[in-house]
C-alpha cells in the first residue's frame, strides 16, 4: 500500500509525515513523528493511555485515523509544557501530579493528563471528586487506585482557578 502524505497541526506546529494510509494517529505520532509520550496500552480503545486532544476534546489516538484529523488542532502530552497555563516548562497539572505522586509507573499518565486538561479547560473552575471520576472513567490506571490522581487534579484546578470557596490561591 502506498504511503499517504499527512499534514498535521500538533502542539501548535505544522508537521508532515509519510505513512500508510490506514495508520492510526497513535502510530503516526509514535512511529513517524517520534512523539512517544502517547502510549499504547491496548490498541483498541479500552485503556485510554493514548488519549490526545483534537480541537480540545479528548480522543483516543489508537482509534483515530491519522488522515481524518488533518487540519484539526491536535495536542499531545508533549505540548502541555508550553500551554499558556504552564510555567517553567511545566503545566500546573504536571506539577500537581508530581507533588502528589499521582504517577507511579507513569504509563497511563500522559492519557490521564490530556483527559484532565480537557476537563479543566472546559469547566474553567475548581473541580470536585465526582466530576473527575466521571470525566476520567475511560482512563485505566493500574498502580494508584486513582486516589492521588483525583487529589492532584483537584489541586491543579484550584491552583489554576482559585480554591473552591472562590478565593484565589
Amino acid at each position, binding site marked *: 500500500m502506498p504511503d499517504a502524505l499527512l499534514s498535521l497541526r500538533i502542539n501548535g506546529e505544522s508537521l508532515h509525515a509519510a505513512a500508510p494510509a490506514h495508520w492510526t494517529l497513535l502510530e503516526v505520532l509514535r512511529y513517524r513523528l517520534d512523539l512517544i509520550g502517547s*502510549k499504547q*496500552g491496548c490498541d483498541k480503545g479500552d485503556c485510554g493511555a493514548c488519549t490526545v486532544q483534537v480541537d480540545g476534546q479528548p480522543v483516543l489516538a489508537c482509534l483515530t485515523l491519522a488522515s481524518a484529523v488533518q487540519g484539526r488542532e491536535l495536542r499531545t502530552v508533549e505540548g502541555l509544557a508550553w500551554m499558556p497555563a504552564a510555567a517553567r516548562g511545566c503545566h500546573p497539572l504536571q506539577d500537581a501530579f508530581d507533588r502528589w505522586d499521582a504517577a507511579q*509507573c507513569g504509563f497511563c499518565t500522559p492519557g490521564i493528563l490530556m483527559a484532565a486538561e480537557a476537563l479543566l479547560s472546559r469547566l474553567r473552575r475548581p473541580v470536585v471528586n465526582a466530576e473527575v471520576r466521571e470525566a476520567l*472513567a475511560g482512563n485505566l490506571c493500574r498502580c*494508584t487506585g*486513582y486516589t492521588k490522581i483525583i487529589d492532584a487534579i483537584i489541586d491543579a484546578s484550584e491552583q489554576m482557578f482559585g480554591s473552591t470557596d472562590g478565593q484565589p490561591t
Partner: protein
Amino acid sequence: MTDSADPDTLDHTPDWQLGKSHRKVDAMERMRGITRYTDDIKLPGLLHCKILRSPHAHANIVSVDTSRAEAMEGVFAVLVGAELPIPYGVIPWTPDETALAVTKVCYVGDGVAAVAAIDEDTANAAIRAIEVVYELLPAYYDPQEALAGDHTINPFARRGNLSKDVVLEFGDVESSLDEADLVVEGEYFFEGTTHGAIEPHCAVAQVEPNGVLTVWSATQVSHYLHRELAKVLERPAHTIRVIQPPLGGAFGGKSEPFDLEFCVAKLAEKSGRPVKCLYTREEVFYSHRGRHPMRMRYQTGFRQDGTITGVAARTYLDGGAYSSFGLVTTYYSGQLLCAPYNFPAYRFHSTRAYTNKPACGPKRGHGSVQPRFAIEVQLDKAAIALDIDPIELRRRNDIGPGGETINEFKIGSNGFLECLARVEAASSWSERRAKLDYGRGLGVAGSTYISGTNYPIYPNEMPQAAVQVCLDRSGRARVFSGANDIGQGSNTMLAVIVAQELGLELDDVRVLSADSDLCPVDLGAYSSRITLMVGNACLDAAQKLRRKVRAAVAKRFEIPARRVTLIARKAMDLEDPGRSVSITEAFQWAEADHGLLGEVGNYNTPKDRHGSYRGGTIGASPAYSFTAHVAEVEVDADTGVVEVKHIWVAHDCGKALSRRIVEGQIEGSAYMGFGEALMERHDVDPDHNGVHIGPSLLDYRMPTFLDTPELHAMIVEAPDAQGPYGAKEAGEGPLHPSIPAIANAIYDAVGVRIDCLPFSPPRVLAAIQDRLELEDAGESPVFKAGSRGRSDRRSA
C-alpha cells in the same frame, strides 16, 4: 542497620528527608512524555518480531513448515522451537519451558515460531504463512482432573501432572481440633486474576559488531533474565547486557523470562539487525503468570473466648502449563499464613497441578492472598458463631512482636494491634456497625507479608543486594543500583537514603538502575525485597561516604567528627549551628583527603530466622509487615450488586521513608484487591477449546475511576531492627485484607457468605435468595430482624 556501633556516627539528623513527601526522582519526565519505555526505543534498521501461537490447548507438534514465511519479501529471519531447545525456568529446580514449543503445545497461546520482518504487517503476514501440523491431545482445565488424567501436559514433568506437593505439620493438629469448642469448616475458591499492567511486555535486542548482545526488556528481574538468556542462548553472561528501561507497571507479571526476550535475542543474532517484540494486549493475557486459582478447604478450631486452637488446610493450586514460580507458590500458600494470629497447631497440604491453561505465577501478594481470604472469612464466621466482635477476636489472637510463628519464622516488629485500632477508629466501627440497616455492612480483615526472602532464588553466598554510591565535587551524588524500579518508586527510595545521609536534596541525587553493564547485580523487584535489602545496602554505602565527609569537615573545623552533621546542603557543627560550610565544599574537602569519593554497600540476610525443617527457609523473611482493613459495602438485595464505599487501610511498614509513595502503595494495593474481589476473572473456556474468556481490557474488568471506592491509607510505624531506619515492605502486604474484608462486609450487610470469588451480582443475588427462602421457611433466623431489616419485611 544504622549507625549503632560507630561513635563517629552518633549524631541524629532526623526528618531531614526521612518520612517526608517527596517528588519522585523520575516522575516529571514521565509526565512530560519524554521518558523512553522499552517500546519507545528506536534503533536504525529495527525489525519487528511476531510470535505464532498455538490455537490448541494441548497437542503434539507433527511438523512446522516455515518455507513460505522465509521466502516472503521483508522477512529477515524465522525461528522455531528446535533452535532454542534448552529448558529454562525462573526457579532453578523447575526448568520446564522452552523459548518456543519444541515437541508439543500446552495451552492456547503457546509460542510455536517467530519471525523478524521489516514492519508489523509483514511480520503478521509471515507468521500466518507458517504451516503447523498438530496432533490433538485431550486437554485438562481442572487441577484434580489433570492429576487423575492419563496424558502428561508438560514435556519436562517428572511426576505426571503433579507440579508440586507440600505437606507440613506443626504441633498436634488433630487434638487441637478435637479439643476446640468450635470448629469452623469452609471450602473456598479463588478464581484466577491477572496483573493488568498498562504497559504490555516488550523487548528489543541488538548484537554489536564485537559480539555483545544487548537486550532491553520490560522486566522486573533483569538479573534472572540475564542468567536465563545466557543459558538458553548458550552465550557467556559477559557477552550479554540487559537493560530495563523505565517500566510501565508489573505487579509480578514481568518477574521471569518470557518467550519474547529469547525470540528477539535469537532473531537479532540470526538477522544481524536489531529486533523488537511488543506483545499485543491479548498476548499479555495469555502470557499471564498471574494469581493461581486455588480451591481451599479449611478447618479452624476455636475456644469459646475466640482464640484459635489449630488450623488445617487442604489446597489445590491450578498451575497452568508451566512451573513459573509454582514451587514457591505452593509453599507460600501455607507458609506465609502463620501471622498475625498465633496458630498453636497448623497443618497444610498444598498440591499444584499442571493444566492446559496459561501458566500461573506470582501476582502482588504472591501465594498468600488466596489463603488469606479463606483464613479471614473463617475468623469472621467464628466471631459470629461465638458472638465476639470480629476486631476483638483478631486482637485476642495477635501473635505480637518478637516471637516465633508455629512454623519457626522469627517475627521482629509488629504493629498489627495498632493497625486494628486505626481502622476501627477511622471507620467508626463500634458506633456504626450495630446500627447499619440491611444492605449496608462493615467487614474487617488482617494480614502479614514478607519484606524479601531470606534466601535468593538460586543458592549462592554473594550479597542479596549491593549498591555503589559516588559523590561529585559539584555537590551531587550518583547511585548505581541493579534494582528494578517498576513504578513503585525504588529509585526515589534510594535517593531518599542518600540524601538523608549526605545532607542533600533529592534533586542532587542521580539514580542509575537496572543496567547489567553499569550497575551491580540486584536480584530484582519481587517478594517486596527492595526497600529492606537494597535500602540497607544503599545505607551501608552512604554511611561510609558520610563518615569520610564528616571526617574531612571535622579536621578543618578542628572539632570531633561526631559534632559534624550533614543537613540542608550544608555540613554543620552540631554544637555551633552557625558554623557551617556548603555541602559542595565539604565534598571537595573529603575528595582532597580521600581521593574520589565512591563506596559500595552490601546487604545479606540473617540466616537464623527460618524453620529448621525441609522447606523451612521458603517464606522466611528478615521482617514482616502487617495490615488491617475495614471495608464498607452497600449491597443491592434486588440485583446482587455490591458497591464498596470505603476501604480504610492501616499498614505497618516499619518506617515510611517517603510518605506519599508509601500511601500510594497502600492505595494501589487496596484497589487491586478490591478489583479481584468484585470484578476480575482470568480463566479459559473449556467449551471453546481453552480460549481465554476475555483477553482484553474491556472484557477483563479492571476497576475504573468510577468503580473504585474511597481509599483511606493510614501509615503505622513499628520500626524493625532488620530494616533501613526500621523500614519494612509496603507494596504487597496491603492488598491481602481487601478481599476478605469485603466478603465479611457483605455478610454484615445481607447475611450471606460468598466463599467463591469474584463476588459477582449473580452469585450474590443467588445467595441472598437462598437465605430469604430459608428465612421464609423458618429454617434460618431473619437477618437484621426489626427496624434495621429489609424494608419489605419491616412491617412483618
